[in-house]
């Protein structure tokens, strides 16, 4: 491992440890309650409805928690280090500022990845238990031929798991990492953690409308020049977050082509890299 990689890993590990000490993992308990409670409540529906809604609600909850986690934890990293004066201790050593920022981002990425893993395991576990219950119920109540029973059991299994669910979770993680990188960029010029959170949350909502602004800007319809300039600025300044919202259709059964999945991952990677690079550019000359 090179010296730079060692330094970045050390900062990342410390950042992650600091975040764990802030008890951010407690939100996982709320997620568990949402998924398990939801599953128990949905037992009164048919099993097809139950699985559909369990997936809808669990993936929705994962998206909420990951985005909140990405924004709230990242927004406070630099202000907290400034407040504790830890940043001066680190930067007085031969640690370039871009390494410091990359280490901070790495810590958040580790946190987000672990959180996705834990939530994913919990979600799949609940789905598996409900699937076993539905299979047992089908076996107990089915009165047709063995071939028809096999087809019915197969239909239950097909309605529960698919690889696309895993890909949907990976896309949620990539979107959260992108948001973390954007929040890090904002926090390099923000005067407080609250300011960074507010700006990042606004960017989150505007990012979901970016595609609308882009289409309006490029549609060629007759609009005032200032409207065209405004929509162009929105389209160019904010990330296209709708591009990562594929889980709504995945849950409904739309198959995710491998090319689309990989291209969306790549877009997330490019956005993350761009925001990190601009964050370094701003942070490089910031007076501390």
């Amino acid at each position, binding site marked *: 491992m090179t010296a730079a990689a060692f330094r970045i890993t050390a900062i990342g590990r410390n950042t992650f440890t600091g975040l764990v000490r802030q008890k951010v993992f407690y939100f996982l308990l709320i997620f568990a309650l949402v998924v398990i409670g939801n599953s128990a409540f949905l037992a*009164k*529906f*048919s099993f*097809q*409805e139950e699985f*559909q*809604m369990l*997936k*809808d*609600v669990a*993936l*929705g*909850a994962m*998206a909420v928690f990951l985005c909140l986690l990405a924004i709230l934890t990242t927004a406070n990293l630099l202000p907290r280090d*400034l407040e504790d004066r830890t940043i001066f201790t680190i930067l007085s050593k031969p640690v370039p500022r871009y390494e410091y920022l990359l280490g901070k981002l790495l810590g958040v990425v580790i946190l987000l990845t672990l959180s996705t893993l834990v939530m994913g395991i919990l979600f799949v576990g609940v789905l598996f238990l409900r699937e076993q219950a539905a299979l047992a119920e089908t076996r107990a109540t089915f009165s047709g031929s063995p071939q028809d029973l096999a*087809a019915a059991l197969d239909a239950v299994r097909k309605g529960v798991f698919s690889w696309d669910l895993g890909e949907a979770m990976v896309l949620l993680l990539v979107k959260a990492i992108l948001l973390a990188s954007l929040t890090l960029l904002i926090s390099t*010029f923000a005067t407080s953690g609250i300011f960074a959170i507010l700006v990042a949350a606004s960017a*989150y*909502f505007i990012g*979901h*409308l970016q*595609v609308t602004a*882009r289409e309006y800007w*490029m549609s060629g319809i007759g609009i005032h020049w200032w409207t065209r300039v405004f929509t162009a*600025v929105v*389209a*160019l*300044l*904010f990330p*296209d*977050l*709708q*591009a990562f*919202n*594929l*889980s*709504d*259709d995945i*849950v*409904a*059964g*739309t*198959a*995710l*082509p491998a*090319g*689309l999945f990989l291209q*969306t991952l790549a*877009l997330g990677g*490019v956005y993350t890299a*761009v*925001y990190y*690079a*601009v964050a370094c*550019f*701003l942070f490089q*000359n*910031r*007076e*501390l």
Partner: protein
Amino acid sequence: MPGRTSLSRSLQAVLLVIVAGALLVPWQKELQATARKAGFHSVPLGIDLREQIGQSGFLAALSGFRSPVAALLWIEAHGAWERTEWGRMAALFNTVTTLQPHSLLYWDIAAWHMAWNASIAAFQDKRQPSEVLRERSRRQYVQLGKDFLERGIRNNPDSYLLQERLGILLRDKAEDHAGASAAFAKASALPGAPAYVARFAAYEAAKVPGMEQEAYDRLRSLYDQGEKMRLPTLVAELRRLEEKLNIPVNRRIPAPPAPAVTPRS
């Protein structure tokens, strides 16, 4: 001043983000086109939907929580069913299917609730003394169920399930055997359709005056596929049509074996 970034550097940073955004636009457009082609992002989040789900629901749908919003509204519709509020259910089903147009389950169950549960409840409604009005109300709910299935089919043209359900609705609720036959025939041509759907198409055609020859051709073609298709109903219907259409004896299916006679002791 500590903690400050110079204004010119901030402007340069904004410019950098804009340049990067401009470079990414062609890729974003291509990715969006690929996603739409694959069936993603096809829900128009317009002012109509805003009126249906309210401001907070619309904001949630815009922020990437379309499917959880649909699930919550579905649960609300279930509550409306328990309270037998059929009109409210229909409105909620409309919203849910608008939010999740590729979920076959929502179209299927919405149509079933309307064409079966709501239509029967409307016909048995004791608050309405006029049987004519009750019958009209029943037909309206059946039509509503049919509308759900037809819209579902338009949104999911490759799915056999909704075509099959439309066939069942037309057969059992509208007595439209020609329409049912056409729906079953379309379903049978789609990927993943079970074998019985093709048989249903022929059985329904056999009930329509003037479609006997088409029904016969369909049944005969199924019969010729082998032993697995030669079910008692299919064979009996085929024999009936052979008689009705005066099919020459040498082209008819073999006669059933004579029952074994047990000699008297």
